[in-house]
């Protein structure tokens, strides 16, 4: 195993920029790691080895002439609902197997322009909904990696790649990142165009980043949106509000870990208080789930009518159910979303971030057929607030536990600065050990 796959991407990018390491070496190290682990991990749908090595060679040649890019040589994976030129966008749906993208999604094109190198496509649950992908958890293959960005979470958690793109409509970036011991960032809604990304629910879908560290997420986010403040230092210990409802709904080992995290942040100088949400959490969840059900039904209805048998069971059932929702209550849900969102916005007049476990549990056994509990992530997809998970703990059976931080809408860079401070304060868990 190469040390290049184990170090934070930020360090390796800096070494490449100083010509201590080549892009070719970094890409090769990732490909070797994929060769060793992929036979049982099943994180990757396609690995375009030749194209990745060719791109690395071009970057190294330019580097020799003094041209260095902000993400020089950074290998990344792409969730298989996001277009990469020349590769199929299959979305876990067999009729799309030959659906080759003619151009990159803008986020992929932007990453390439910044010097990053796509290695290939990572597995997704079917159309980023809930029928599981074949991927397993890198910490324990009998457990789910989470979903829907299952391959992206597992690929980064297993250190086969330092960055993977994901999408989140309920909890599909943060939950797989947390279950796989990675960092997952879902910036503010519409932070980057979703062109070239298959939709699931128009008003809820977010692009997201999965990385090994919060600083790596800040490096990539800052480069993508040209905001160098994302990698700046947190100016002072933050004011953090722990939301009690989520701790109360957590499994005991997750609740105990959150208690420990709270104490360590406080010891480090943060002002940490416990609060309750200014509304009923179940109402917030109902609003999310209903809007999602209606939007998924609308997005997939025609295709389900045409190709029902090619789908797994989840989307056709969601379409059938969503088509029955009375429109007046869908509209009321959308009005309530605005009201509840403004109440959450007001919390940021007092606090820099909200804190809660990323999920109520550690990764459940795959035999249950679920990608885990979306309850703790979906509120922030509904409200469009930025959210990040840090891998801060390990449960009794060696599975990762994530800590989730929520920021003010539009203040992604501030959340990343705070997350980097928390990362230093809390430390991150060790990567998985393979037999």
């Amino acid at each position, binding site marked *: 195993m190469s040390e290049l796959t184990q170090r934070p991407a930020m360090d390796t990018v800096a070494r490449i920029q100083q010509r201590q390491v080549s892009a070719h070496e970094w890409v090769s190290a990732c490909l070797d790691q994929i060769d060793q682990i992929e036979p049982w991990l099943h994180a990757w749908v396609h690995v375009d080895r030749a194209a990745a090595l060719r791109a690395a060679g071009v970057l190294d040649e330019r580097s020799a002439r003094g041209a260095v890019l902000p993400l020089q040589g950074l290998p990344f994976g792409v969730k298989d609902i996001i277009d990469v030129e020349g590769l199929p966008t299959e979305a876990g749906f067999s009729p799309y197997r030959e659906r080759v993208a003619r151009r990159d999604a803008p986020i992929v094109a932007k990453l390439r322009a910044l010097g990053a190198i796509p290695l290939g496509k990572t597995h997704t649950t079917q159309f980023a909904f809930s029928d599981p992908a074949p991927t397993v958890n890198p910490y324990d293959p009998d457990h789910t990696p989470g979903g829907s960005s299952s391959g992206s979470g597992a690929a980064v958690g297993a250190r086969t790649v330092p960055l993977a793109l994901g999408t989140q409509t309920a909890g599909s970036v943060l939950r797989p990142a947390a279950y796989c011991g990675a960092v997952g960032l879902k910036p503010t809604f519409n932070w980057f165009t979703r062109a070239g990304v298959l939709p699931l629910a128009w008003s809820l879908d977010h692009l997201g980043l999965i990385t090994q560290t919060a600083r790596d997420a800040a490096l990539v986010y800052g480069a993508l949106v040209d905001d160098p403040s994302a990698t700046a230092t947190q100016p002072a210990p933050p004011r953090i509000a722990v939301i009690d409802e989520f701790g109360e709904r957590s499994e005991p080992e997750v609740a105990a870990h959150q208690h420990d995290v709270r104490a360590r942040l406080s010891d480090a100088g943060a002002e940490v208080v416990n609060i309750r949400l200014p509304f009923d959490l179940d*109402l917030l*969840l*109902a*609003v999310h*789930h209903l809007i999602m059900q209606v939007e998924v039904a609308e997005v997939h209805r025609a295709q389900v009518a045409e190709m029902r048998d090619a789908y797994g069971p989840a989307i056709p059932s969601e379409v059938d159910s969503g088509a029955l929702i009375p429109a007046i209550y869908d509209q*009321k849900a*959308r009005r309530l979303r605005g009201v509840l969102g403004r109440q959450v916005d007001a919390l940021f007049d007092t606090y820099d971030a909200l804190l809660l476990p990323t999920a109520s549990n550690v990764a459940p056994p795959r035999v249950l057929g679920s990608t885990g509990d979306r309850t703790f992530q979906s509120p922030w997809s509904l409200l469009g607030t930025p959210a990040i998970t840090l891998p801060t703990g390990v449960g009794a059976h060696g599975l990762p536990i994530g800590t989730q931080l929520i920021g003010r809408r539009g203040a992604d860079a501030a959340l990343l600065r705070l997350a980097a401070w928390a990362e230093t304060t809390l430390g991150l868990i060790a990567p998985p050990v393979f037999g």
Partner: protein
Amino acid sequence: MSPESEPSVEAFARLLRRAAEERYGPERAEALAGRLQNSARWLALIAAAPLEFAEDPPDRSGLDGDLR
């Protein structure tokens, strides 16, 4: 309509079940029972939530464009 007069979970469940049977037939309606029960719970919570007349317009309902 006051919140008190909004349908209960049970009333929404019956309404959805009836609609499913009419639209999809009894077999598919039965297969949807769990999802329809969830939808009924969500609908009842949303229906009962207080909201003043024209208090807030729909927010981010798909009209706002991408930023980049």
